[in-house]
């Protein structure tokens, strides 16, 4: 039977999605590899996978790609599973290519779906900022394959409840870290807390200049909401980091999300939870945000935003 190994990053959605992805490939024996897991988390994993191999936690207790690689590589090389799965998350990016290179496995990155097609493995992924899809095929590989999964893409097939075997494992005795964790930094709380806002107006690179922010600021005020933004706006220091929504910013759960000049990258939308009513204003009909939004307005934000503000103010008075 096909052997699939997954590397566990978290015990919630991530573990579940890895299990769902493994099950999407037909019958397989699944093994979860994890560094550091409390008893209850081990039990939770045993319900999702046939076997759970538990290594000791890293020195600082956090995800440490170099340490995890040292733990799991000997297993990959000795047991030669058909496929190794990880999430295409920030932490996954720090580990997956390293493991691929060291276990000589072709890597399929950021997959939306996977399909076994002997002798090989096919996947669909996005390119060009989500505007294009690519079907790729990893050729026959005697070393097996490695794939990273787009977070949130594998949620459809519910994994069967099983009773996996737990197996304790040790870290390699000769492990010599070449990188050490000095500190974990939590984001600075800003003047506003966008995570609590019911209405958010999110502005993206389409705003073009810092001075232009005024029009979206003023729209947010008219709506009684807060201003949020995408990463490029923060990179340019036009707005503070505490307004950035996304996988490397904050997770928000508003009722209304109005995205203006935002393309809709998965890293940005990954921070929008709770299924808000989403409205997108973008001049590009092919912008990926229109696939997620409830309502789309194709047009120039510089014309639409002031007009909308005017109508809101008129409506409210």
């Amino acid at each position: 039977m096909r052997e699939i190994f997954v590397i566990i990053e978290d015990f919630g959605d991530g573990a579940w999605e890895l299990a769902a992805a493994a099950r999407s490939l037909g019958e397989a024996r699944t093994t979860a590899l994890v560094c550091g897991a409390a008893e209850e988390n081990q039990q939770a994993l045993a319900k999702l996978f046939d076997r759970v191999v538990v290594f000791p936690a890293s020195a600082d207790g956090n995800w440490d790609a170099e340490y995890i690689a040292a733990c799991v590589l000997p297993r990959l090389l000795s047991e030669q599973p058909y496929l190794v799965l990880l999430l295409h998350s920030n932490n996954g990016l720090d580990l997956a290519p390293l493991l691929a290179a060291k276990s000589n496995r072709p890597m399929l990155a950021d997959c939306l779906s996977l399909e076994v097609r002997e002798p090989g493995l096919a996947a669909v992924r996005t390119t060009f900022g989500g505007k294009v899809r690519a079907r790729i095929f990893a050729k026959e590989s005697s070393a097996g394959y490695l794939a990273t999964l787009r977070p949130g893409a594998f949620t459809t097939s519910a994994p069967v409840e099983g009773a996996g075997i737990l197996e304790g494992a040790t870290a390699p005795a000769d492990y010599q870290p070449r990188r050490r964790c000095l500190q974990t930094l939590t984001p600075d709380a800003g003047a506003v807390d966008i995570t609590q806002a019911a209405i958010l107006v999110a502005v993206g690179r389409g705003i073009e200049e810092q001075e232009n922010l005024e029009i979206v600021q003023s729209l947010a005020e008219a709506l009684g909401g807060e201003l949020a933004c995408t990463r490029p706006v923060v990179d340019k220091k036009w707005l503070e980091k505490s307004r950035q929504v996304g996988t490397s910013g904050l997770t928000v759960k508003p009722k209304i999300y109005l995205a203006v000049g935002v393309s809709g990258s998965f890293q940005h939308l990954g921070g929008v939870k709770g299924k808000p009513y989403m409205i997108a204003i973008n001049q590009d009909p092919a912008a990926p945000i229109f696939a997620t939004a409830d309502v789309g307005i194709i047009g120039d934000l510089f014309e639409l935003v002031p007009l909308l503000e005017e109508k809101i103010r008129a409506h409210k008075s």
Partner: protein
Amino acid sequence: MEIYVCIKRVADTSEVEIEVDRSGLALEEADFSWDINEWDNFAVEAAVQLKEQHGGTVTAITVGGEDDEEVLRRALAMGCDQALHCYDPAFEKADAWAIATILAAALKGRAIDLLLFGAVSADEGRGQVGGLVAGLLDLPLVSLATALTVDGAKAIVQHEVENGLERVREVDLPAVITVQTGINEPRYVSVRGIRKVAAMDIPVHGVAELGLAAENYASQTNRITLEELFLPPQGVGAQILEGSNEEMMNQLIQLLQENGGL
């Protein structure tokens, strides 16, 4: 300090209409404008700043076709000292593994303190090549750097991890760092600046110079092939409003009202 920075030229497709060409394997490129990958621009700036602080040299490398030399000139104009163009007809359609193999071959045997990459390329969006090179050269890797300083034989790197957190790590040099946007403010490159470096010699290395055996190269490295490019299905997702701006905004007011926004 010897710093190498790997860069790529990409098409900016954020505001053009995209069409797949007749082969089904490439996009119609007529309307594209090309520039350095956004992440790589930050990586070049980081490399040049470190050199300005600690001395040494910065070398920019790209794997690409003839036109891609343009990004190397741009990197030279930003303050890189040398450039290397890995170009060979055999490199066409190189997958991430092939690119990493070529880069590793170009870097092997050189004295390296720091090897910088962008975190991801805007077109492929794989976030893979830097980590693969780290693995192939057996160097420590830190991904998604948002701050980077060098202190003797160590680098201090702040990088993005889970849940919006960042972690500060100390890493032994030589090391591979992938750079995240926003780490610095990349300097402006003027046409004059590019003109100044127009005469600089940029060596071109192909399979022979890199010591890659041509006949093995393709079978060894092009492990992933592109089968098809297609546009995401149309008509799923948003209800697209129609009419004049005036009409669309009136409808939107109505929808906001119905959905608790007003």
